[in-house]
């Protein structure tokens, strides 16, 4: 397609109002029912006392005071989330880009390598977390066995509050497959002539990376950063399963396991919503945290739309 021509005129075809209505109204109805209604309800619940048995009563900002002033686990979860957003997202981006650059250079068996690096990304989070809890088990796990065999002091990983989050980061680095594919695609789009020209101008490998690769893939870096931040703010399954499996406590339905084992170090905001809303039946406080998550997620979405430039119109980033 000649993009110059396409960019010059307005996209799309006028259609009768009825056709448009028929095509989009089921989705619009769905948005109202499953997105609009519960969102408004959550905001209302955050000002009510409600145990899901007795009718809700209005209590004003009482839940908000409770969560912010008397509920230290909220701040623990917020700090953990901030830590994960900074460390996990940046390491995933650096590692994903490095593997992408490696794949671009690999000539022999590129299909096999791509498969191997992509597959873990698809593994069900519960399954991959259980495998990592087993592998990094301080007493019986093979990883610490290997580390001790070569004389490296082995950390206690998921059972040490200082190492539980780094262990989760390791798990997340195992799943950089999607980033690898995205970065590979965008790296292959960088015009080769630019590299050749830079080489003639005497640019070294670092110079070429700094002045050609990075600026060209900048829009994709922004996009992956923002989507990574949003995904990490919702971080739930891996943190929950790691905490429960490592604690060794029975976790069948109904049993009460203090979330965030060890010592609140793997507690995240979504776990608090579940714990407060569905185990403590404190709907109001759970809704306060849900509203906080909503505000954070929407802030990131606005950032994404800004970072993406006109991508709503063109479908392309940058």
């Amino acid at each position, binding site marked *: 397609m000649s993009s110059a021509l396409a960019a010059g005129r307005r*996209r*799309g*075809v006028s*259609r009768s109002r009825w*056709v448009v209505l028929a095509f*989009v109204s*089921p*989705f619009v*109805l*769905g948005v109202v029912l499953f997105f609009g209604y519960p969102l408004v*309800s*959550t905001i209302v*619940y955050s000002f009510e006392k409600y145990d*899901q048995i007795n009718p809700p009563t209005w209590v004003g900002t009482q839940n908000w005071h409770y969560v912010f002033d008397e509920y230290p686990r909220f701040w623990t979860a917020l700090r953990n989330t901030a830590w994960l957003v900074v460390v996990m997202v940046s390491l995933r981006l650096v590692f994903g880009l490095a593997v992408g*650059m*490696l*794949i671009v250079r690999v*000539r*022999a068996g590129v299909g*096999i390598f*791509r498969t*191997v*690096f*992509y597959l*873990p990304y*698809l*593994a*069900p989070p*519960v*399954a991959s977390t*259980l495998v990592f809890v*087993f*592998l990094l*088990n301080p007493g019986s796990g*093979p990883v610490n*066995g290997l580390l001790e065999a070569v004389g490296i002091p082995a950390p206690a990983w998921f059972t040490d509050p200082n190492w539980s989050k780094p262990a989760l980061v390791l798990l997340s680095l195992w799943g950089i497959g999607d980033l690898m594919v*995205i970065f590979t695609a*965008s790296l292959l789009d960088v015009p080769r002539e630019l590299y050749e020209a830079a080489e003639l101008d005497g640019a*070294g490998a670092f110079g070429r990376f700094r002045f050609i690769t990075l600026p060209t893939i900048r829009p994709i870096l922004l996009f992956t950063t923002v989507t990574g931040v*949003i995904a990490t703010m919702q971080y*739930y*399954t891996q943190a929950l399963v790691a905490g429960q499996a490592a604690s*060794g*406590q*029975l*976790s069948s339905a109904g049993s009460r396991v203090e979330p965030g084992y060890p010592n609140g170090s793997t507690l995240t905001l979504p776990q608090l*919503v*579940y714990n407060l*809303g569905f185990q403590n039946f404190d709907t109001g406080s759970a809704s306060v*945290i*849900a509203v906080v*998550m*909503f505000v954070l*997620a*929407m802030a990131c*979405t606005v950032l994404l739309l800004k970072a993406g430039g006109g991508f*709503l119109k063109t*479908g*392309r*980033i940058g």
Partner: protein
Amino acid sequence: MSTGVLTKPGPVEVVATDRGWRRLGRTRTQVLLWIATHAVAVGLAVLFLAPIAFLLLTSVMSDRQALSGSLWPDTWQWSNYRRVWDTPNFLLWWRNSLVYAGVGTLLAITSSVFPAYALAKFRFRGSNALMVVVVAAMMLPPQVVVVPMYVVWSQYFGLTGSLWPLIIPLAFGDAFSIFLLRQFMLTLPDEVVDAAKVDGCGELRTLWHVVLPMCKPAVVATSLFQFFALWNDYFGPQIYASDDPRAWTLSYGLQTFKGAHSTDWNVTMAATALVVLPVVLVFFLAQRAFVEGVTLTGVKG
């Protein structure tokens, strides 16, 4: 990665190694770089495969050996898989996962094609606003809306203890699927749609006979992503199905399985292998579609 060696063009030597380098005139530094690149790739690949290898090896160890941190099974105890299979409800969890992921995907894709097509190819008032809604719905954490939705499903419909509260909303379109399909449909030229119309096709015929056949790779990729998202979902089944073990999915059942067999890592790993297996199988059957799918997400600059 140290690629600095490339900058100094060394003396040109004739090197004839295997396929990729049969062309003459490669410098020695380039050959060394080739070797270094592939060595790093192989090393990384081994690291990426190691967890899967340990998973499979542990799944056939004896109870005691699985706790010893050893790497290779003394005896190949295949009966671990039998023990998993005989766990109450395990087959039901398989069926539930297939129904949730299968029916859910079918509903989501069918209902997402229409709004995706409208957003990609129609010009109408409010289309930009609707697109913002799609992106916002895609980014919204499920925890934000789960409390009131649970109240509605349990108190008005009595459907908790089943997967229906998760499946029914998918019939109204899924934001992520709409987004992916629209991204692909944008790349189809408007002329194709216009030509179909000139030939006398109605909107539905145009969509079914002209647009969808051209979108086949995108539809396949989007379906795969949807299927895996549902197959891997933990939070949804935990909220709605947790009341009744017969309604659990594999992803949710697996974690409680670990709870009930807290020291039997061998059996837990066997169960984990059985949950990962379908993912691996489908991936190998549809590898191309996955790679296309990721690059189709519209993030190519």
